[in-house]
């Protein structure tokens, strides 16, 4: 096996990471910074969905709800209780994971279409509750004025401030994305990750060799909701405003499309999808409906002709190049 540090599996991600680190310093363009920050948020959300869907094979259609639960938890904690960002963010992740546990326990006993539809129904319920529980969530008026991350003190009297500092915000979010990726990678290459694969491949066979399918799926599901909560928490403090739409099942579908487009079941795929698709959608903002039609067509075309997404396409091209040599 090729294990040299120059192999493409190492070189290409390293180059992209370098670009991601240097890029904000090369341009003053705030809009570019905004897109990069959002790419991190969606990158985390898509990586999380990919973990449960791409690796453990469970089509969780409540992802947007967990994103929303994370966002509202951190938003409410900061606004209503005055808790600082650095406490609110982990609490947002834990709350999302707790709901993940509560919902995962009953719903993961169902399979296939039942699970997909059951989770989709849960997503609708969450959005309606956020919308109607006005005493808590302000309903349709939304939560306004969620503060940005509080400053980090550094030695020698220096501080890193995040208010109105998009470059610092970007680096913070990038670190969170890398952390998410790191954990996901660790899991999928581990023996635990093999359990995921086995359960995805054939639950009955997996059980016959001593793997507990329910527990395996639950671990994947709860881990995924934890990171969905992280993405939501970051989103809340960057955008500063939340409305019930942010937990809507359209968010689920949006993230789902990012995962499929980039390449389900690969580490890089969701990041690629989460970077490219929001750019397309922001560019075509004025043409909202046309953009959605294009999304739909793209989703169908990708799923029929390139079910492994961009990453799958790249892999095919790469294998062709190698065999030609």
């Amino acid at each position, binding site marked *: 096996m090729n294990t040299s540090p120059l192999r493409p599996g190492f070189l290409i991600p390293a180059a992209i990471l370098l670009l991601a680190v240097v890029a904000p310093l090369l341009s003053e363009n705030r809009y570019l910074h905004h897109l990069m920050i959002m790419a991190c948020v969606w990158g985390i959300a898509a990586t999380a969905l990919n973990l449960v*869907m791409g690796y453990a*094979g469970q*089509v969780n259609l409540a992802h947007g709800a967990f994103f929303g639960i994370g966002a509202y938890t951190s938003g409410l904690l900061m606004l209503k209780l005055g808790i600082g960002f650095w406490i609110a963010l982990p609490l947002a992740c834990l709350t999302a994971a707790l709901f993940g546990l509560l919902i995962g326990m*009953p*719903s993961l*006993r*169902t*399979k*296939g*279409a*039942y699970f*997909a*539809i*059951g989770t*989709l*129904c*849960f997503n*609708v*319920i969450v959005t*309606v*509750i956020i919308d*109607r529980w006005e005493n808590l969530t302000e309903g349709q008026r939304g939560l306004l004025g969620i503060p940005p991350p509080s400053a980090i003190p550094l030695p020698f009297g220096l501080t890193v401030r995040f208010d109105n500092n998009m470059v610092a915000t970007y680096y913070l979010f990038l670190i969170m994305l890398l952390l998410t990726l790191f954990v996901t990678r660790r899991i999928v290459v581990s023996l635990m990750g093999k359990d995921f694969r086995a359960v995805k491949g054939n639950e009955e066979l997996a059980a016959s060799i001593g793997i507990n399918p329910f527990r395996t799926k639950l671990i994947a599901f709860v881990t995924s909701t934890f990171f969905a909560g992280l993405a939501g928490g970051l989103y809340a403090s960057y955008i500063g405003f939340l409305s019930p739409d942010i937990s809507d099942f359209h968010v689920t*579908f949006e993230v*789902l499309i990012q995962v*499929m487009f980039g390449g*389900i079941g690969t580490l890089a795929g969701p990041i690629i999808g989460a970077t490219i698709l929001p750019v397309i959608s922001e560019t075509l903002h004025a043409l909202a*409906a*046309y953009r*959605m*039609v294009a*999304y*739909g*067509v*793209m*989703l*169908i075309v990708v*799923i*029929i002709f390139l*079910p492994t997404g961009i990453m799958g396409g790249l892999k095919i091209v790469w294998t062709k190049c190698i065999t030609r040599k």
Partner: protein
Amino acid sequence: MDLFLQQVINGIMVGSVYSLVALGLTIIYGILGVPNFAHGSLYMLGAYFSFLLVTAGGVNYWLAILISMAALTVIGMVIERIVFRPLVNAPHLNSFIAAIGLIYVIDNVALIVWGPDFKRFPPLYDQLYHFLGVTITLHRIIIVITAVVLIVLLELFIKKTTIGSAIEATAQDRVGARLSGINVTRVDMWTLGLGTSLAAAAGALIGPILLVYPAMGGAVTLKAFVIIILGGMGSIPGAILGGFLLGLIESIGGAYLTTNYHEVLAFGLLVTVLAIKPTGLFGKAH
């Protein structure tokens, strides 16, 4: 008591429409194994087509329903051909996602073509009838009768025609059906056409009572899924019964449990049932 009776009648009316939608969805699931998330979008198209035929085309309402059903049959068949057929042998996830893609396409094409505003049918059969302290419009009675007639026709179609028995055989045993010379690919296509035409009929029937707008299908799709999961996916009697049951539950529950949350009653019900019995109320183990 009057309130209760009124809600029962409303429930039956809504339930008959639910039954039609769920019936279409369940036969599609039974044959193709695809949860067609876009089913509600096709119901929406059915409502728009009949609305346009009646208002812009000046066509008779009943003729408009028939034309909409025919048009949606064709659209359903085209969808089977270009979207679901290439995915027959792919993992299930892929056809889930293709169906979600279809929602985006259909709903937004409707949005572009017809705009976001709510459309209202001209007054049709809005004579009022009073009995036992209950008020009901003629149109509501017509909906229930028409839905029941369509359900009976579907049953006859499946039992009495060659296409129908091919569909039934394929639903029971796809491989066996293929071995005995049934062209299951063609059955897939017919089934999508048939199921979609039922959604169109439902949209066309309820259109004059509700408003017609591009996003009208979303909640209906989900409720139809709730019904067929509760009634057993692929089961025709389950869909019919479940449709009426959900209509009644919503209508009676909505009147008495006057909360903000009655529109999610169905989804709460489903999540609860699945938590207790993961294969649905009448579902088999696998």
